[in-house]
């Protein structure tokens, strides 16, 4: 079923909307939540919460791109759920990604106030400057939170190559954010 038809079902308050969403994007949402939570039960719960939140937000929302809309809800919910977890394993992909992203921000201990909208705009501009391949790898790592192994298999490159590409992009991002005044 096309996205527009699914959105129309939400607007008509027909529960078939949830069924069709699950049919089309269930695996997608499950993968996003599992990458963050690394737990089967928790990721299923997160996906169910996603459907509930989607049901409650459409209408009045009418997303242009349903896949992105649902993906973002799942990611945010999974991230929030993760932060509530008492035990956070050191080898979780999310923890590793957070350590990597530390390279992109100031090493000063002083936390500067920042404007989230400015940061998102800066990130959009930064991504537009990357080639499509590099952008894909960056998002697979820091949006979808794939492991290095998964990214290298998906893109048919070696793990070393994947790490090198990500390292270079992080350096570019650091320079870009610094020049944009988003951190000192």
């Amino acid at each position, binding site marked *: 079923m096309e*996205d*527009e038809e699914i959105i129309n079902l939400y607007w008509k308050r027909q529960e078939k909307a949830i069924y069709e969403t699950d049919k089309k994007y269930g695996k997608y949402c499950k993968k996003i939540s599992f990458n963050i939570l690394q737990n089967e039960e928790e990721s299923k719960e997160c996906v169910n919460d996603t459907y509930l939140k989607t049901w409650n937000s459409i209408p009045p929302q009418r997303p242009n791109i349903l896949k992105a809309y649902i993906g973002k809800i799942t990611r945010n919910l999974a991230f929030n759920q993760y932060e509530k977890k008492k035990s956070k394993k050191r080898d979780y992909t999310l923890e590793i990604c957070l350590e990597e*992203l530390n390279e992109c*921000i100031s090493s000063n201990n002083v936390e500067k106030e920042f404007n989230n909208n400015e*940061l998102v705009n800066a990130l*959009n501009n930064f991504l537009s400057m990357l080639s*499509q391949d590099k*952008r894909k790898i960056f*998002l697979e790592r820091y*949006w979808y939170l794939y492991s290095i192994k998964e990214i290298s298999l998906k893109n048919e490159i070696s793990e070393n190559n994947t790490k090198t590409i990500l390292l270079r992009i992080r350096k570019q991002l650091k320079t870009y954010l610094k020049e944009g005044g988003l951190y000192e």
Partner: protein
Amino acid sequence: MNNKDLLKAIGEIDDKYLIEDNGIKEKNRIRTNNMVRIMKKFKIGYALIPICWVVVISGIIFLNYKNDNNNLFENKLYIAKENNITLNINDLSKTGMTILDTDTKTVSGFNIPYPFKVNENANQNEEFFIIPSDLTQIKNYIVYIKNDKDSNEYNIIANYIMLITNGNERNIKVKYSKDQEPLRDYYFSEEDSKTTTINGIDLKIYKYEKSFYTTFSYNGYNFDIETSNITEQEFSDYLVSILR
């Protein structure tokens, strides 16, 4: 700002980057490390180098050939400068379009309102609108919708259609309505799209495969124009000629 702030902000990037990348797409074929080892073992890589050069050189020759033939819709920047007007054409090839089902009834109409300005001073032999010379047929239609969704009667005029066609695959479909925007049976995102101004009138022009799409208000009417297999030059000339 800390690393969590950055990771969360990455989650809020523009939607277009997420559909550009099918990061979760299941691959049918997975390259294994064994295959990589086998290739290294037999040094197939070295054999591929001359083959790659042949492909690159062939590609260059092929592209030059295509450019010389001046085909439609290939490898062009989507800006056309004609009549000293720059068209900002928004490319939908990456975002795509969604086809919608619309509940309407379309009938041939002979007596439909004429939405353009009439140049009363024009010579009778002078061409008023610049239309491609092979588009010799003009067919008029009226699109009706239902007053009530449960009714079977289509009795409300949604919009008019003026179809300018060569009777085959080349046409300009001009939909217009006085009271509302003409109905569309497709949907695409207009977010972040660029505007073109022609004779003081702002419009947004989109391109998808072999079609152009544009909407604007003019002379008291709301227009929605869709073309099929018309070149940028032809479309530009037509738009400039009707938006006087």
